[in-house]
């Protein structure tokens, strides 16, 4: 590939299922399509939460063991340097609150909720797949997934599909 050649295809791997861990893949895939770049997302391990019908609307921001939460402090009118104690994060409702806060901020930026975002990506031509090995591990079937999921693939098929693409793991 020559140095300044535009990117033609991207293949994203989404391996984590927190709200803040799923948004980057969706934003990058959709953003690729907006630039005329072909895009697909391969959901694997806990990332599958984002495409399972029973869970995709309820993704959460983790407030325990998340040492980077200080970054969200300005949303509460507190300094960005203030740490967020993990013990407070363990109090029931705190994760729900942090999740609500992020969803609220995202809405202000015109970023849709995950279910609507999956529809938007699909309409834009993003191909969405689930990873066979983790689908088997979590005892899931194709019927458990939102209709935007095009299929269940092995890692080999994923690499085949990704021919000529930049692979981005998140």
């Amino acid at each position: 590939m020559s140095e300044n050649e535009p990117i033609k295809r991207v293949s994203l791997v989404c391996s984590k299922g927190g709200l803040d861990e799923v948004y980057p893949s969706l934003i990058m895939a959709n953003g690729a399509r907006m630039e005329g770049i072909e895009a697909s997302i391969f959901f694997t391990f806990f990332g599958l939460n984002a495409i399972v019908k029973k869970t995709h609307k309820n993704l959460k921001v983790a407030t325990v063991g998340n040492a980077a939460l200080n970054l969200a402090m300005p949303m509460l009118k507190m300094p960005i340097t203030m740490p967020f104690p993990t013990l407070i994060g363990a109090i029931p409702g705190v994760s729900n609150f942090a999740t609500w806060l992020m969803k609220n901020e995202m809405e202000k930026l015109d970023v849709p909720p995950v279910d609507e975002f999956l529809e938007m990506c699909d309409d834009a031509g993003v191909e969405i797949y689930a990873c066979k090995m983790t689908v088997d591990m979590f005892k899931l079937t194709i019927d458990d997934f939102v209709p935007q999921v095009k299929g269940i693939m092995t890692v080999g098929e994923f690499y085949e599909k990704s021919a000529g693409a930049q692979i981005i793991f998140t």
Partner: protein
Amino acid sequence: MATREIAGVTVEIDENGYMTDHTAWTKAIAEAFAKEEGIDELTDRHYIVIDFMRKEYEENGTGPSIRKLNKQSGVNTKELYQLFPGGPAKKAALIAGIPKPQGCV
């Protein structure tokens, strides 16, 4: 400020080739931009998007997101990608004579 000639008139453009003064825009300019982008003919459906983008720009100072286009313009995301292949928001903004949209979604 750079200028270029399009559809027989001279217009001011920014570094990305987008018009800087949307009031200088005409349908003839839109058609010329469209041809350059590989869209042979602008249909009524294209103009629904173009008019919506221009209205949004006039009201908010920036072009709409794809999400807003999908919900409010009357042209859904799927059709939007068919009408403006290879980057709908960017191409539609160029053809509509407004600056390149700044949003990430």
